[in-house]
């Protein structure tokens, strides 16, 4: 059946309200054509997205896998492919001490960030769910950190953490907590704290807002029932509210994880991975391997480790999103 000649015709009304279904063999020819026309339209609507997905995600990911098995050099970049290298790039990455510490740093950074973001974000969400003067105003301003370009956040904290003339040291000194300037950015043992603080600062608005909106959705009756049953504030939180908003907590932590393993700009702006690679994460070290020393194969191998680490979250994310996944209102036939 020629779709084009049919396109101008009025479509037959679908029977029922939401009961759209695909007619199986033996359906009337008019019906079948409407179904086909809608299938075609649906696919056409999807074409740009599918093309984009293939170009911007599938191709780079596949190519990254290819690169990780190739012996690349600055000269091979022009050729798209390079000689096969077997597992050499992975062997390099696993034996390279900076790569190894970058993996450890990424884990520390991720866990530390999530703990900090969750504790502060949840506390603020609880605070904002109480009634007090100015709470709408406070809630609207708390999202500011989240809106800034990440590189700006990075340099901002570099400024605050300077040993001399940095606000952090000045506060600590005036409170009498330290008497000498703390070398936040020059001491390899301390630099990790600076990127942690900056990243927690960055993630708090996101945690606060997501958890706040979940708290808003807890039915008032449930809370009242708990009060009537004699539950104290802590018990209400622990046994009534947290179980109800648990799915949102899970999604929030998951998205926080996803965000944190990707962090790059913030660290480049704040410490540049230093001092002495003490804040080198997988992302920043991979950038260094690929774009500073032009070992794209080794960079790609490290990228793949990062990708595997990040994708650990994928099954969980899909599972938590399963309702939305299966959902289909099916206005088409």
């Amino acid at each position, binding site marked *: 059946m020629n779709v084009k000649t049919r396109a101008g015709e009025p479509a037959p009304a679908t029977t029922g309200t939401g009961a759209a279904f695909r007619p199986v063999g033996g359906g009337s020819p008019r019906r079948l054509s409407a179904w086909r026309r809608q299938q075609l339209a649906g696919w056409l609507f999807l074409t740009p997205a599918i093309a984009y997905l293939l170009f911007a995600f599938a*191709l780079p990911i596949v190519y990254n896998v290819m690169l990780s098995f190739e012996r690349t050099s600055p000269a091979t*970049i022009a050729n798209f492919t390079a000689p096969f290298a077997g597992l050499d790039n992975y062997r390099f990455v696993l034996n390279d001490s900076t790569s190894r510490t970058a993996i450890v740093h990424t884990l520390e950074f991720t866990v530390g960030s999530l703990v900090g973001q969750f504790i502060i974000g949840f506390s603020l969400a609880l605070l904002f769910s109480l009634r007090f003067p*100015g709470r709408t105003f406070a809630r609207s301003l708390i999202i500011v950190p989240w809106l800034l370009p990440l590189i700006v956040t990075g*340099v901002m904290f570099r400024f605050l953490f300077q040993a001399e003339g940095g606000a952090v040291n000045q506060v600590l000194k005036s409170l009498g907590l330290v008497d000498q300037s703390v070398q936040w950015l020059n001491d390899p043992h301390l630099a990790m704290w600076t990127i942690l603080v900056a990243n927690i600062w960055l993630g708090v608005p*996101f945690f606060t807002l997501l958890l706040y*909106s979940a708290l808003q959705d807890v039915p008032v009756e449930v809370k009242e029932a708990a009060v009537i049953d004699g539950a104290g504030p802590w018990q209400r939180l622990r046994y009534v509210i947290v179980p109800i908003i648990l799915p949102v907590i899970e999604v929030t932590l998951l998205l926080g994880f996803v965000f944190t393993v990707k962090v790059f700009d913030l660290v480049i702006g704040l410490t540049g991975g230093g001092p002495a690679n003490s804040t080198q994460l997988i992302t920043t070290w991979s950038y260094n391997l690929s774009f500073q020393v032009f070992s*794209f194969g080794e960079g790609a191998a490290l990228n793949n480790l990062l*990708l595997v680490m990040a994708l650990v979250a994928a099954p969980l994310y*899909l599972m938590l999103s399963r309702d939305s996944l299966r959902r289909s209102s099916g206005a088409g036939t």
Partner: protein
Amino acid sequence: VTHLQRSRALRWLCSLAAAAALVIMLFPVYAIIVGSFESTETLFSGTFYWLPHAATLDNFRTVLQGGSATQTTVGGSQVGNVVTSLVVGLGTVLLSLVVAVPAAYALSKYRLRVTVVLVSSMLVAQIVPSIVLATSLFIVFHWIHLLNSYPALILADGTYAIPFAILVLRAFFFSLPNELMYAARVDGASEWQTFRLIVIPLARSAVITVSVFAFLAGWGDFIFALTILNGTGIQPITLGIYSYLGNYSTDWGAVMAAGVIAMVPAAVLLVMAQRYIATGLTAGAVRG
């Protein structure tokens, strides 16, 4: 003390706590704004001033006119870079809408076999770290001679915005009653006409939410600009800021003035599109 008085006291205590939280959360932004008005001498004096100390516009002059107080390697004006960032931001919005609006519509209102696979792909795509894409895209763009170009940067920046846009718009389209589409079809509208004349106008708020986030993603992108542009051609403001950083001689005045300029869109959008930002955040916008 009556019950009423106690609860009133508690409320003010909450306000106080919220105010303290806000001061801490906004202090870094305040510090960079104050810093942008400080002279180079003040910034290197080793003392942090809580209020502007001998305020000057020199840093903004440096940033807008070119040159640097401490570095000889950078000298370019940031005006062109701001324009570049605007173009990239708007380009990311345009690309995201063209790709995401029809796709989200199809994924919510048509029964297609690929729906589950595609929606899952969008969820997984949000997880993929940008550095993984950047390394490959650099070589791919090199190969197809697209390095140092707007299209390359916008295509790359779309990776921040498009999966999120499709998921948010799809959730929105579910809220549109199917009867709208049935009615349009009965009236003889083609699928395209239904989409163009009925669906898109109704999707305004969701489209604004998605656009705000796409713009901020394109405007604030650093990693793709760092990898796909080699510094000889176009340069966004984020790279401009980076150029003032040095291992030993950071031009703090210029860094902060350029940083303040880079914060302007966020400030404008916070005032003008606050509702949409909150919606987008709650929908789980992941960045980076």
